[in-house]
């Protein structure tokens, strides 16, 4: 055979694109070249494949091999093409089942000894292969459990190249090698945090449940020691478990970020970047290889920015567009990547640098300019996108012994009930939680509130206290409050309470 073909996957952002790897054998001096916009790591594949094939007992041909990665105009990165290149190259000469080779997708890096080494991003790659209609996938042994998470794909988790050749019907001696393991970075399981540990702060706990029920963004402002971080860390615990699609999306991003993925975690991700994070660290980026940022890793879960006032204003404002669209598109000279950004934002901040501004019993020592500068980091457009703005106070001594408030278990049940009611109401629509529902549907859809119920909102809008976007956000929160109470209709009390949660406006 002169030309052999097989498949690999190039990752562009969180999406994979199938790449046809074709190898041509021409009767010329020994030479081995790869064309089709490879980067440096992929270009060096020449050496790895050459030695891996020799050490497997099937040396490459002593003629000219040209390997083309098609579509040729798509830039390709990384070492995950090694196995596909090796198999296509060997198939030009070695007897292998051509149909088997041409139908399989190969993902993995080769060591010089011929063993397959794990690569990041196997899960999204296998998902892409499955979507493109491929049913047979070869992955490195250590990535086997990850690839098996995708249904309807026959996975060969190969230890070495000889196994792959034998799988395609080639005649080669398969040796028993020690599989190359993933770097052992297994994270310690998160200690279970219970909401009952939060003392006092009944209003805040209630607001947290509302935020969880509707998927609303939450801003917490309060003095040090009021329990802002404590509350935020307990939010994933009361969120409902991820469904299949969301769990797969979250696991894909973890895989792309190079984390170990062995099972579909149903717990919503919780990402809390430090306040020194740059714009690129938050939204993702990089000069040539585009990597997912904190908002992509928090997709389907919670992004918690503690000490939000200490973040660079530019970093915070970069969140505005993904907050609205639920996705982030990153453009670079050589690459264009799209990542999901369907996260719930939780901001925590002090009211001023010393933390005592406006707190009963506290004495603020900050100059007025410092206070303005501190809260000025949170720009108007960003604050406008927050659904719930919560002001916390210090816990009074009297509340310390007042007994537990709400446990995580009961809060989660409340949230699950509310979400079930919301999804029942939204059954005819493409949306699932209140936070997703567009304003037009809220204002003019079948469940639109009556003018009487709407009156306080309209008044605030006319006064200029609310923007139209904030108007819609208040309506969404009001629906979450109604869902928690088990009402099928929006009442004036829900709108009033939502307005209070958004603006601190009491009726």
């Amino acid at each position: 055979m002169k030309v052999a073909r097989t498949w690999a996957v190039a990752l562009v952002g969180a999406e994979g694109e199938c790449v046809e790897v074709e190898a041509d054998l021409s009767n010329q001096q020994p030479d081995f070249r790869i064309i089709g916009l490879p980067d440096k790591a992929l270009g060096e594949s020449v050496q790895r494949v050459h030695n891996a094939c020799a050490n497997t007992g099937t040396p490459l041909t002593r003629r000219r091999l040209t390997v083309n990665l098609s579509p040729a105009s798509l830039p390709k990165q990384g070492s995950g093409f090694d196995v596909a290149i090796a198999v296509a190259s060997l198939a030009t000469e070695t007897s292998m089942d051509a149909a088997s080779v041409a139908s399989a997708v190969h993902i993995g890096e080769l060591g010089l000894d011929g063993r397959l080494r794990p690569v990041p991003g196997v899960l999204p790659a296998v998902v892409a292969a499955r979507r493109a209609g491929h049913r047979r996938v070869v992955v490195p042994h250590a990535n086997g459990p990850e690839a098996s998470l995708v249904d309807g794909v026959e996975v060969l988790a190969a230890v070495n190249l000889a196994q792959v050749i034998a799988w395609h019907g080639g005649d080669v001696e398969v040796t028993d090698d020690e599989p190359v393991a993933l770097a052992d970075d297994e994270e310690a399981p998160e200690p279970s945090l219970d909401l009952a540990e939060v003392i006092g702060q009944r209003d805040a706990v209630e607001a947290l449940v509302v935020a969880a029920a509707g998927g609303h963004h939450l801003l917490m402002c309060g003095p040090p020691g009021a329990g802002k971080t404590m509350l935020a860390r307990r939010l994933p615990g009361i969120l409902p478990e991820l469904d299949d699609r969301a769990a797969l999306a979250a696991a894909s991003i973890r895989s792309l970020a190079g984390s170990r993925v062995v099972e579909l975690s149903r717990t919503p991700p919780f990402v809390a970047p430090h306040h020194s994070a740059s714009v690129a660290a938050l939204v993702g980026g990089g000069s040539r290889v585009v990597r997912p940022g904190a908002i992509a890793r928090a997709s389907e879960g919670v992004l918690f920015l503690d000490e939000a006032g200490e973040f660079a204003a530019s970093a915070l404002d970069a969140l505005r567009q993904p907050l609205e669209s639920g996705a982030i598109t990153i453009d670079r000279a050589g690459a264009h990547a799209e990542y999901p950004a369907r996260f719930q934002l939780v901001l925590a901040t002090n009211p001023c640098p010393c933390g005592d501004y406006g707190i009963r019993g506290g004495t603020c020592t900050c100059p007025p300019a410092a206070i303005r500068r501190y809260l000025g980091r949170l720009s108007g457009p960003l604050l406008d996108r927050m659904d719930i703005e919560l002001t916390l106070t210090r816990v009074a001594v009297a509340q310390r012994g007042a007994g537990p408030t709400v446990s995580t278990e009961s809060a989660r049940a409340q949230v699950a009930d509310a979400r079930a009611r919301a999804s029942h109401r939204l059954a005819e629509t493409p949306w699932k939680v209140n936070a997703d529902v567009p304003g037009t549907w809220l204002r003019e859809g079948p469940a639109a509130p009556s003018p009487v119920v709407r009156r306080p909102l309209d008044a605030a809008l006319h006064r200029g206290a609310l923007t139209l976007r904030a108007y819609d956000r208040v309506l969404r929160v009001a629906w979450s409050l109604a869902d928690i109470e088990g009402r099928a209709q929006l009442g004036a009390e829900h709108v009033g309470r939502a307005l209070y949660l958004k603006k601190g406006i009491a009726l």
Partner: protein
Amino acid sequence: MPRPRVRAPALARDDAGMAHKDVLGRAGEDRAARYFEAQGFTVLARNWRCRDGEIDLVVADRSAVVVVEVKTRRDEGFGHPFEAIDARKRGRLWRLSIAWASAHRELVQGRRLRIDAVGLIGADPRTARLEHLVDVEVP
């Protein structure tokens, strides 16, 4: 870039004073000449020298004049014979071919000029494995 001059180690020689490697090379060229003759080519020249170097073999049939580079190796310990025909060597072969063709215009006579490579692997060139590359590409 000029290659640094390295003094070659003393070569093993036979009774007539010929180095073993040259004996092997000559035997390989004999084998290649017979191979081309068996295919209907006529040998036009052997070991043609000029200032730039030497051509191992020139053969011709009705349509083509073929300049042949013969590489003989006892085994593949130092790599395949064709690996020794690198871009530099191919460039030189092409210059030599042009030089030969201009010195023997009457022999070329409108036939195509091309370069072939013959690789021989085995201790005895008369029985060694013969590989033949037709129309080697010149960079």
